[in-house]
């Protein structure tokens, strides 16, 4: 038809069958258009995921722990996170039992650690005095400061047996990384997988052992 100005007339004069056909075609065209746009978004969204380089940076790290003195704390970087290595003294170990009643998760039931570290001292039974722990607050990921001295502390409280205090939101942990009651964090600081070879500790690898 050589008539250019009759789109309204066409629409009104269209048979019901044709109107249905037009609606269907319009709908399916718009639908496929939406699928196309959605598909085009996928590579952009995925481009923001961790890159291969970032994934490869998660290798285990090793540290010779024989140079740590009793009562001394060192931090090792593993996967960009600070890992605390603390060789606890006898007095520090005794303190772990003293404050058990003030803890939110004393048995680490709701917390992250390998099976061999789910105990009172949260450490491998081979070296119970050596605390190996991700120094990352389970509230919002700050790095708690060490309060190793036993005794009253303005932030840790009067009956402190030493521990860790998170400066961001005031969460308190004992010297096994177990969280106190009534602070923002609710689980204990995580223990990463680790294994010993002589005086060298490998953090991030335990050969899948559970004990």
């Amino acid at each position: 038809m050589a008539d250019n100005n009759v789109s309204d007339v066409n629409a009104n004069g269209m048979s019901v069958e044709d109107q249905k056909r037009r609606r269907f075609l319009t709908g399916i065209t718009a639908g496929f258009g939406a699928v196309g746009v959605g598909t085009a978004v996928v590579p952009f969204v995925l481009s923001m995921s961790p890159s291969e380089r970032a994934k490869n940076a998660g290798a285990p790290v090793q540290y010779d722990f024989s140079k740590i003195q009793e009562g001394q704390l060192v931090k090792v970087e593993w996967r960009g996170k600070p890992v605390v290595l603390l060789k606890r003294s006898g007095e520090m170990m005794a303190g772990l039992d003293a404050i058990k009643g003030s803890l939110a998760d004393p048995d680490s039931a709701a917390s992250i650690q390998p099976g061999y570290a789910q105990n009172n001292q949260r450490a491998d039974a081979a070296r119970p005095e050596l605390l190996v722990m991700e120094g990352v607050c389970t509230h919002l990921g700050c790095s708690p400061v060490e309060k190793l001295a036993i005794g009253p502390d303005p932030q840790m409280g009067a009956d402190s047996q030493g521990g860790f205090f998170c400066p961001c939101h005031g969460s308190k942990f004992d010297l096994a990384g177990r969280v106190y009651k009534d602070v923002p964090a609710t689980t204990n600081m995580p223990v990463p997988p680790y294994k010993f070879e002589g005086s060298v500790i490998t953090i991030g690898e335990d050969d899948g052992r559970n004990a």
Partner: protein
Amino acid sequence: MAIHRHDNHKSANAFMEWVDQRFPATKVWNEHLAEYMAAKNFNFWYFFGSLAILMLVVQIATGIFLTMHYKPDAELAFASVEYIMRDVPYGWLVRYLHSTGASMFFVVVYLHMFRGVIYGSHREPRELVWLIGCVIFVALMAEAFMGYLLPWGNMSYWGAQVILSLFDVIPFVGPALTEWIRGDFVISDATLNRFFAFHVILLPLILVALVFLHLVALHQVGSNNPDGIDIYENLDEDGKPVDGIPFFPYIVIKDLIGVAGFLIVYLGIVFFWPDLGGIFLEKDNFAPANPLQTPPDIVPLWYFTPFYSILRASTTSLLEAMLWINAGIVAWMWIRSKISIKAKIAFSILAAGVAVGLYFGSGKAWGVVLMAAAIVCFFLLPWLDRSPVYSIRYRSMPFKIALVLFLAAFFILGYLGMNAPTPGKTLLAQICTVIYFAFFALMPWFTSIGQTKPEPSRVTYEAH
């Protein structure tokens, strides 16, 4: 070729005639400036809208010059900021204008929002102006948060660490979402690089678009005034409001006085006290990012601290208090409220759901929920406020008391957020958190009681 003009705005000369036939220049000028009528009794509080636009322009302009020297790379970022400060000619000025500008932008925006609350500018018919404004506030917070990571100082790093960890508490998808936002398992070069992209491209575009929508919505309904009355109820024979004056030149000239006063304060800080004793530039951010060492007192910049305090206040004891408050509200409703039985049952089920959430949820998850709710509350204001009058000048006493309590709680929360938590301060933050939410929750009640003063039919104005 015939050109069809659908307006009757008279072009100034032959050149404008030519332009107007192709682009609505005179029409837009007239409708939005020369013939846009605003009340003649605008006061101090009406400076802050135009000042907010000024700050947006300043931030974009100084930002462009900073990107000429800044390197969005974890290895280079901190040093490149120092390079701007020491070696780039006037780099220190551009950077201080930008860093102080961010804080001054928030000062202006907070005062602008407060103006809306005291004069009822969020009420009908300006609800969408208010809602778009609230979205601008949220976008501005995102912009400021991402910008704060860029200097790659230690506070930048740990601030981003804390705020991004907030997404971890979202059920099921939280940790994966956080990883996706960071682009790594920790805050890293990937995070810095994408925050730079968002800070300099995405969010400025969004902000400019939102400001445009804010003004379109405002010009559709017209500006409010300190009396909170409709100036279009008193029209002269030309159909123009008798209490209205054209935005250009009158309000523009008035706003320029505001700009002059504002610049004295803003540039005074830039030149003489750019860190404002650690409030505008935090001391810990003068050291480079260190993933192994959290700063001893990690605090966000001052404009986030009221919300940050609410986040921190959420511990088990606050949840217990909220459980009691929740139960108290339900009990009061059954005994005293006159709403229908159906509504009572529906409300009780809702309250029971909240109670289950409070009982089983962690303080951490609730902290995030409360912090988000603290911002969402602003969006609801137009519907929570039931007062028959708009302006504080005619409001009832219960509203004024509630507003003072809210302001006190807001400032105390802001102060507490800048300081390390102690048990006493946490308790105070919890009390203020309860006051903060009570202000919004009880607003339908305290705005509908008490004696309001009669509104005038014309705006209050004395010629000088």
